[in-house]
């Protein structure tokens, strides 16, 4: 068990990539514009089947846990900065003529991709902070 007073070496990029894979799985499984996602499954399903409910609860738990961890780690300032980054990246891509903002599918993909990246950074940030400055993020109970 990692001790609070010690710092252990981390692999920043591999760590971020693994967490990004997790976030991307959850986000893209919930919604993506290709038509194969939980959103489309719910939309096209006539009635609620048990598997649909199970997958929904699973995705909800994963999304809530990830978003809460990311938000607690980054805080309001971090989330604002990250959202600004998303908008700037979209503007940059459109400005460099990589894609048109009017192309809804590409824009949605870019938006989702940057959102997953923000979530991954948020989930990893406590570990980075612990390694860089030695400060740990603590959740206190009772609140």
């Amino acid at each position: 068990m990692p001790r609070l007073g010690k710092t252990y070496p981390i692999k920043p990029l591999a760590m971020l990539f693994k967490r990004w894979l997790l976030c991307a799985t959850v986000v893209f499984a919930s919604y993506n514009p290709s038509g194969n996602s939980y959103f489309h499954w719910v939309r096209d399903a006539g009635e609620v089947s048990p598997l649909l409910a199970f997958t929904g609860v699973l995705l909800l738990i994963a999304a809530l846990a990830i978003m809460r961890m990311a938000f607690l780690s980054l805080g309001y300032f971090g989330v604002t900065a990250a959202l600004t980054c998303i908008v700037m990246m979209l503007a940059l891509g459109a400005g460099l003529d990589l894609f048109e903002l009017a192309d809804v599918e590409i824009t949605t993909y870019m938006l989702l991709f940057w959102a997953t990246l923000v979530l991954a950074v948020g989930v990893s940030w406590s570990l980075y902070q612990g390694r860089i400055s030695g400060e740990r993020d603590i959740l206190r109970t009772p609140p």
Partner: protein
Amino acid sequence: MPREFGFLDLSMRLVAGLLIVLGSYNPYAMSYYHWIVETDGSASLKALAGLTLVTLHVVFVLASVRSLGPVGIGLLTALFGSMAWVLVDQRWLDIESPRVFVLTLLLILGGVYGAGISWSHLRNRLSGQVDSTDITLTSPL
């Protein structure tokens, strides 16, 4: 070098949660409840086992409530409940039988116990955030 919280640790905690719940009561006559109700004698052993079980339940319940919170416990119950629904729908689980129904409820409780004592570890492994309890607030001295 400290060990990371792995799959084996999670499985052991889930098994421990199930053992504690099913050891206290299960509908198949192999539990502490049946030992108390159906046999006489060995009162000291019964008292010792009972106190051990109560202690374990308190530890697990407190850990689950602190780690998951009411929202987490509700969500996990919904997850295990919908899992049971899938099994019932596939006819792998005969919920009409009262014994199986009670066993399903107990398995859900055991799963929540196991997840409750694992979640702080999982969260720490995933994001580096540490769950803590402010014990100064609850101290009577």
